[in-house]
């Protein structure tokens, strides 16, 4: 059973697009030069394939390996077999890195060990807190303690990245709004880009119809990736030390996102995020040590950023548990574009709880219409409206999972009779109890990084580190795929 979530694939959830029927990725075969008539292929008793050449010599044939990059570059299916992921993005791989590091340290080769950074997002921390019955802030600190025990050099929360994303997205919205006023047809609606399941689906299925509308702002995970790989060497004053970056995420699709070519640096041959680990996998790892997270020592989160260390690690926003994009950008846009109007954040549910909208009116006319669409059925309706030019939204926060990221596909499943719905409302309640975050504009670390690392708010470097591109995939229509 594959584990992709939301729009891609999720077990026990009736709200996702399906995986492939069969992989249709064409495989390049290097023909042997000697054979004129073609050679024979035999299947051995152990299931391996061998080639018999004219002389009768046996040559083992190589198995075709489909990499995650192949899958992302192919329109054949939405996801691939899970085995594809296991090589790079698994708990085994993460543990291998930690163990390797320990061996190097034990043998005194500290200088050669990778510098390991772990970035923990809010949703899996809440999922683990609920599962192990620990208060959220304490769960995060115990998780920090766990990673430090494994050998992590730095453990950080995602607040700096979250704030960068909100600031960039709100600026992008204002810019797009003005482009629309100037006549641009593909400026609005702006569609949220932080859900990799949604982005992957849009690229594979709707290509050029939809991609121009998707916000170019990177997701918090990938902004964190940029910061870790571009800022930390400065901070460490060591540009040669290899950094291994682990993120802790609520969904498997984040693994796909981390594997995108766009986030691979060919000059250093590293990814901005090397390994994505999810709440479910962490639970398994902790339980496999026959431990309870509650027994773990609390660790202190690190603060490698400029300015004063933030004391609040887990925070909530007024908006959704998926990042609160719609709420935040709505308030910003209302203030910026219609300063005389009183904006109220009354989101009302439309067809279902997973499709909500909020409007700002001026003189009885709707001037801003924002939506939140969670889950595949609502995404479908939105996409179809967009295709038929009947979409009246200015911004839509889109997440592939019903109920958004708190219900991410790799959040820990409820046990002992709790229904998934009860679980979501528990996490939702935990989230609402978190302290409210300060305005991202007030984040001194972010403001300093704009000036120092990014070279200002309009620089090319800022664009490169905080924005990305999307790629439409050509549909591969092959007559061999027809089935009655």
């Amino acid at each position: 059973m594959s584990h992709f979530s939301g729009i891609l694939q999720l077990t026990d959830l009736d709200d996702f697009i399906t995986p492939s029927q069969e992989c249709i990725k064409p495989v390049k075969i290097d023909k042997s030069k000697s054979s004129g008539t073609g050679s024979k292929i035999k299947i051995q008793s152990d299931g391996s394939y061998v080639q018999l050449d004219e002389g009768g010599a046996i040559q083992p044939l190589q198995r075709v390996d489909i990499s995650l990059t192949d899958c992302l570059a192919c329109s054949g299916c939405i996801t691939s077999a899970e085995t594809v992921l296991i090589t790079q993005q698994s708990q085994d791989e993460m543990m291998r890195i930690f163990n390797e590091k320990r061996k190097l340290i034990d043998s005194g080769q500290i200088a050669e060990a990778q510098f390991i950074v772990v970035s923990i997002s809010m949703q899996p921390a809440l999922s683990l807190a609920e599962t192990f019955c620990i208060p959220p802030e304490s769960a995060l600190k115990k998780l920090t303690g766990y990673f430090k025990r494994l050998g992590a050099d730095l453990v950080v929360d995602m607040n700096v990245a979250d704030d960068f994303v909100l600031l960039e997205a709100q600026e992008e919205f204002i810019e797009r709004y003005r482009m629309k006023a100037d006549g641009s047809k593909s400026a609005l609606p702006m569609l949220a880009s932080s859900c990799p399941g949604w982005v992957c689906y849009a690229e594979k299925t709707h290509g050029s119809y939809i991609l121009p509308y998707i916000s170019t702002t990177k997701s918090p995970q990938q902004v964190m990736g940029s910061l870790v790989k571009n800022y930390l060497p400065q901070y460490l004053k060591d540009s040669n030390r290899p950094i291994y970056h682990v993120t802790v995420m609520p969904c498997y699709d984040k693994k796909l996102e981390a594997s995108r070519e766009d986030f691979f640096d060919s000059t250093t041959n590293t990814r901005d995020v090397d390994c994505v680990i999810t709440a479910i996998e962490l639970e398994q790892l902790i339980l496999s040590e026959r431990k309870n997270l509650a027994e773990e020592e609390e660790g202190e989160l690190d603060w490698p950023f400029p300015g004063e260390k933030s004391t609040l690690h887990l925070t909530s926003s007024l908006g959704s548990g998926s990042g609160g994009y719609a709420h935040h950008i709505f308030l910003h846009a209302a203030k910026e574009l219609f300063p005389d109007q009183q904006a109220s954040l009354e989101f009302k549910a439309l067809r279902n709880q997973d499709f909500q909208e909020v409007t700002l009116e001026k003189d009885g006319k709707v001037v801003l219409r924002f939506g939140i669409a969670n889950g595949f059925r609502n995404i479908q309706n939105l996409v179809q409206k967009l295709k038929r030019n009947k979409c009246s939204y200015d911004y839509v926060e889109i997440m592939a999972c019903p109920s958004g990221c708190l219900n991410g596909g790799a959040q820990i499943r409820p046990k002992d009779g709790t229904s998934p719905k009860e679980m979501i409302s528990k996490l939702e309640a935990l989230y609402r109890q978190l302290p409210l975050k300060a305005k991202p504009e007030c984040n001194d670390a972010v403001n300093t990084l704009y000036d120092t690392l990014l070279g200002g708010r309009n620089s090319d470097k800022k664009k490169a580190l905080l924005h990305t591109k999307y790629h439409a995939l050509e549909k591969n229509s092959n007559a061999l795929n027809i089935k009655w």
Partner: protein
Amino acid sequence: MKVLYVCPVEMAASGRLDLVDSLTGHRGRVWNVSWNPTGTVFASCGEDKTVRLWTKSSGQRTWMNKTVLTDGHQRTIREVAWSPCGNYLASASFDATTAIWDRKSGEFECNATLEGHENEVKSVCWAKSGNLLATCSRDKSVWVWETSEDDEYECAAVINAHSQDVKKVIWHPHDDILASSSYDNTIKLFREDISDNDWINCGTLASHESTVWGIAFDKTGTRLASCSDDKTVKIWQQYLPGNPEGVVTQSNEPTWKCVCTLSGYHSRVVYDIAWCHQTDLIATACGDDAIRVFKETPSSHKNQPEFELICTVHRAHTQDVNSVAWNPKEAGLLASAGDDSRVNLWQFKEETIIF
């Protein structure tokens, strides 16, 4: 002097299907036939990407192709379905779309296209209430669409309960309960969960050993017939929670139990099944080119029903029979479609044979 002797008399139900009409017009395979709710018109569709509407003028014996709907699809049309009001037609195509045709202008015109399936749409069906539509596809999903007053169609659910290609969707004759059958050998039932307006799988019927190609409810909606690649027909009986028979139910959902398997009658895959809501007869379309009619025996018991084969038309088509449909008003009138590009009409006549 004649010798009189008494022999034991055995009576058996029997019947025959008389060919009423054999209609040409389609090029290539005809995949499906479907009667409108009043039984005055039927639609057929197939490989030639057209939907054809056939009617009989008053006083005429023969059925005429009055309308050909073209340009709705780019690939084979696999199935066509009428809305309960008879004013809309839905056509499901291998081009991954479902077209909605209405006759507001007097003639049927395609006025909406439902997009969303990844690939071939295999079946489409309108719920009795008229504002829900279901489709299914090779992409393994079943979709429920909601129609609004302004003829907008919105996706109400995408259900991924099957693990393989979904072949057929049908609605319960009275309630908003949906049934689907699949290449994964199962039939699944779905209903709306009122708490969050999502659709949930409320039953899985497993017993067939291969693809379930067709399913049909009886007129009460408490029985379901299914036909399969395993050459059998199965009858499923619904048992409500707390049923007197003591059949176990789970989470307050009815259990559907296979109470009868008809094997040995079909020599190849059974592609379609139709349960007549007037006569209670079951007709099957088979890959051995035959149409068969089954009838429940009078002494049959609810929990162990018996059905007998009362009629077989060998070479009903010269190739595979793909679809059978009973006229909803005219008892015994059956339409069939085949790979031989024909649509045939049959009249069933019951006769009692005395041995």
